[in-house]
């Protein structure tokens, strides 16, 4: 009996150590830019990877990240088919700025507003920016908190690894 318990525990611990990041995108309701409700279960990209980036209009590094990615986004899409979903956590104070910032900057991303922060909580995001990679099956395979100049280089390396079925870098 002891052995059983030990082996179960060992396997459980191994599985934890092996894959702690995984899991599907939690299903919550957020809003699109015209105020309509959208379920996160509709996030798809025809089996190609998705990058989900949590940001806010008052968050300088978040906007830097999304600006810097924009310079290369057309190439990324051509090479890997990756899609970026930018989720704003702005509340009533700054929410009107989401649409004006996105349009002025000309971001070509899918943008949603999580003003009640349901999605932020379900994804266990503490502070923004927080970026996730979702594989073609809808599993969360990688996440990163904060943004430093050039982080998009690593982000894209990992997207390429994912496409080729290679191990992601941490």
């Amino acid at each position: 009996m002891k052995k059983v318990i030990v082996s179960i525990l060992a396997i459980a611990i191994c599985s934890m150590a092996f894959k702690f990041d995984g899991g599907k995108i939690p299903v919550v309701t957020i809003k699109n830019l015209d105020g309509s409700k959208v379920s996160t279960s509709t996030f798809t990209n025809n089996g190609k990877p998705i990058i989900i980036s949590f940001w806010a209009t008052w968050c300088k590094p978040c906007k830097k990240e999304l600006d810097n990615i924009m310079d290369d986004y057309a190439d990324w899409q051509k090479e890997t088919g990756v899609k970026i979903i930018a989720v704003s956590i702005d509340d009533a104070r700054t929410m009107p700025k989401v649409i004006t910032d996105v349009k002025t900057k000309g971001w070509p991303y899918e943008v949603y507003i999580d003003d009640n922060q349901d999605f932020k909580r379900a994804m266990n995001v503490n502070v923004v920016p927080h970026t996730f990679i979702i594989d073609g099956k809808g599993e969360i395979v990688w996440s990163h908190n904060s943004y430093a100049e050039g982080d998009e280089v690593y982000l894209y390396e990992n997207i390429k690894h994912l496409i080729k079925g290679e191990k992601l870098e941490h």
Partner: protein
Amino acid sequence: MKKFLCCIGVLFYSTSVFSQIKDIVESIHGNFQIDAQYYNKDTSIGAPIVPQKVLSNGFGNINYIRGNFSAGLRYESYNPVMQGFDPRYQGSGIPYRYARYKTQKLDITAGNFYDQFGSGMILRVYEERGLLYDNTIDGFRAIYNPIRGITIKGLIGHQRTFFSLSPGVVRAGDIDININELFDSLWVNKKTKVTIGGSFVSKYQASQSPTLNEPENVGCGGGRVTITRGGFNIYGEYAYKINDPSYVNKYSFKDGQGAYLTTSYAVNGFSIMLAGKYVDNMGFRSDRDQTLNAAMINYMPALTKYHTYLMATFYPYATQPNGEMAAQGEVQYKFKKGTPLGGKYGMEIAGNASVAYGIDSVNIAPQNDSRQYHYVVKSFDPGQKYFHDFNIEINKKFTKKVKGTFLYSNQFYNKNIIVENSAIKEYADIKTNIFVADITYKYKPTSSIRFEGEAMLTQQDKGSWAVGMVEWWPKSNFYLAVLDQWNYGNADESKRFHYYLVNIGFIRDAMRISLSYGKQRQGIFCVGGVCRTVPASDGISLTVSTSF
């Protein structure tokens, strides 16, 4: 043989159990954060003496999400709470736990939840962990979508106040109608999108006053509309509250009302936004005797630019729930690449202006009555000036390696009202001119160094300040920052202090560790419409944060 069979059995059993355990384990996620600070004795900068020497705040969230079901809890611990936060956060506990079942039609929560109706003017239950703001409701909530386009919400419960519950019970309902989705065939392809909503919130708290005839049930109702068409966007909301005497409104029986309107027009490369707000006696709490930001039911955001630079946030504004008129406008333009001003990489320019005034009211003599009004509104003209901020911000990329942000801001700050909540003119109004230059130099594709210089020029309060900062990211997972804030313009020469701070940080995936050493100046901290002074400190602080 027996042993062999046993082994096979164990293996078989354990793989099926294993896959179940694995499924369960993979459905568990969460995050943790701990902040701790060691306080040095430093009376020169006015840092209070901390007898415990070390103070810490910590929390851990654990969520289990599987299919339509989710459950979770948050453990929090304050040993004791760090300086600058409400000292009523004491000890440890589990103030947040819930079970939720959500399908497309129905979403039911038992336990704690967060929610908001419209912009939050009559109800917003939310948390801001970094600021220790949490007014979660402990009770029941149901969200029902009877047909496409209609969402009905109902909730009941008590709000969290630190590690206990507020005495008043909150009951609330809300309906949200998306006209385009509701009238599918007629409207779904229309360019104009319309959403309307209405809500009612009521609280009950037994009266304890021997002299005042306090209302025990207080109701607040409101309506809202969102219209979008092409690049146009309009949002309007109005709310009305019946008499609700409270400590914060000095037990006035006057009814309250609030209106909020924001409009914007945005196309690729250009946007304009205008917003206005009128608030009269709209403080709304589930405990009429509470102060600071405890037991607040609603949320009235300040209509001002959300600055992030240290000097631009030195004197922050918060909506005055007892009475305010405010307006904000912003224009943003992006000079395209290849234009004379845009240069090779383009340039963004944003101009923003915001003002806030009191309402035009006169005090009235106390009546010989158990209901006191204290004041009447004379007109819809602006009253006393509370705040203004006129600012311009430029973002420009000069070369592939160098980019910068430049900000100028002119601010006006009525400290008596905003910080002291007092009509007595004890302090002079503070007028500031703020300049910021923020330059990033990316010397390798994944290495950069950022310089920040700031100056705030003022004759009032503590006088002028200068700030210098260098932030070095040799690799994307490590940074080192050095900051100095210098109060060079203090009228008292012995108080012209330097506040040095050194900060290092490591990041790996979702984990972040940062360590800092140095001095923090005294600051003003606003949350939930309440501003208060945070004392200066000197010491070492550590933050560890991760999610899984």
